[in-house]
């Protein structure tokens, strides 16, 4: 696993910086830009194994795609420290890149800046809702001091993904995966999962 330093997560654009592996090893093939774009398209179909409604790009965990002479590097960031899907996701990405003839794939992890549910795309949020999972609210507006929580107060306005009612209640703070909590709708009586904002 590559340990990124704080200086390295500036430009997400594959063309923008030399990247931590150094300019010397970066590929100089004329079709690199097309290959990187194709890789991004391939990644749009690689699904999260635990929420198989959305892809890794919908989820916002692909931080960079870089063409090297000997490999196509995909930089991913973990959702939760202990997320058991991390290894399966890396394997799925690797297989998809290889199958598209863009490989060999090289998966590296970039831990900082930490993933936030704010990076889930608008399309990803729609897909979650259609799948029956209430998407997370925004957390970007929170002040840094909110990272140390005052006391047991969390925003709890989670509209039902099925009927849209705001009359919902939390059944459990944790759900079937690390990223979800369990709710139920008081209006339509359906239980549903909520993707926790972090």
């Amino acid at each position, binding site marked *: 696993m590559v340990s990124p330093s704080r200086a390295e997560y500036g430009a997400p654009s594959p063309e923008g910086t030399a990247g931590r592996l150094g300019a010397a090893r970066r590929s100089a093939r004329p079709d690199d830009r097309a290959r990187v774009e194709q890789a991004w398209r391939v990644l749009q179909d690689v699904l999260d194994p635990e929420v198989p409604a959305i892809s890794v790009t919908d989820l916002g965990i692909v931080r960079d795609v870089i063409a090297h002479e000997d490999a196509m590097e995909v930089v991913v960031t973990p959702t*939760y420290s*202990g997320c058991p899907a991390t290894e399966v996701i890396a394997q799925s990405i690797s297989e998809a890149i290889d199958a598209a003839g863009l490989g060999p794939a090289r998966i590296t992890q970039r831990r*900082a800046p930490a*993933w936030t549910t704010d990076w889930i795309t608008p399309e990803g949020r729609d897909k979650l809702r259609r799948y029956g999972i209430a998407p997370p609210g925004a957390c970007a507006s929170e002040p840094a001091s909110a990272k140390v929580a005052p006391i047991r107060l969390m925003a709890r306005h989670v509209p039902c993904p099925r009927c849209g009612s705001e009359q919902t209640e939390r059944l459990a703070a944790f759900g079937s995966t690390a990223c979800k909590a369990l709710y139920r709708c008081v209006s339509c009586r359906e239980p549903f999962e909520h993707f926790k904002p972090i």
Partner: protein
Amino acid sequence: MTAVASIEIKAAPAQEYLLRIGDTCLIHAQRLAEWSGHAPILEEDIALTNLALDLVGQARALLTHAGAALGYDEDQLAFLRDERDFRNATLVELPSRKGGRDFADLALRNFVLAAWLNVLWAKLEASSDAEVAAIAGKAVKEARYHVAHAAEWVVRLGDGTDESARRMARAVERTWPYLAELFEDDAVDEAAERAGLGPRRSALRADWAALVEPVLADARLAVPEAGQFRSTGMRGVHSEHFGYVLAEMQVLQRSYPGGVW
């Protein structure tokens, strides 16, 4: 079947500092896992194992990072060290389902530790070690959720029925003597602070108290006066309970070296 020899750790202060945090997360998770299938309600059963999952993830990141400087990987550090080479706070190794302890003890332990970790991770985001800062940036969000969840139980039980309040008050009495260790410095803390690696433990007390005291007040729980007892797990001197924790946690790797799922 051949048992493997233990590894011995000669850690510099920086690794010592990281092992204290990583081991505290790891052993806390191990004790939480004992509750799988035994929590009072199904939702809490799932919650406790989810908390443990986050803690194991945080421990893995820290042990991997500290281990890189020590020449060991996360698995060797977790499964092949003996008691004296673990640096977790004593509190996390104490039984939480036996010896008269019950769910009240666990809820309180979860709360005080989540608050401690929340405050610590927030300060570690400014670490001079970029990897530590990155690990903290992720973990601080998880710890915050843990604080919120655990606080709800502390209030529900402390300000609940006579029986739940009695049990929670006893849990406070049993837990509080082990908290001093979380806030007192030694040479490792001083070295970490000098290097910009992370805060000294005494620097966590004010923020921790600001998180914990309002919840205890809501729970109608009185804080005991400070006593003389000092636990020493972070120096590698553990309670009589710890060997049993390691025996259960390590038995597979000790008996079947390198075994994988």
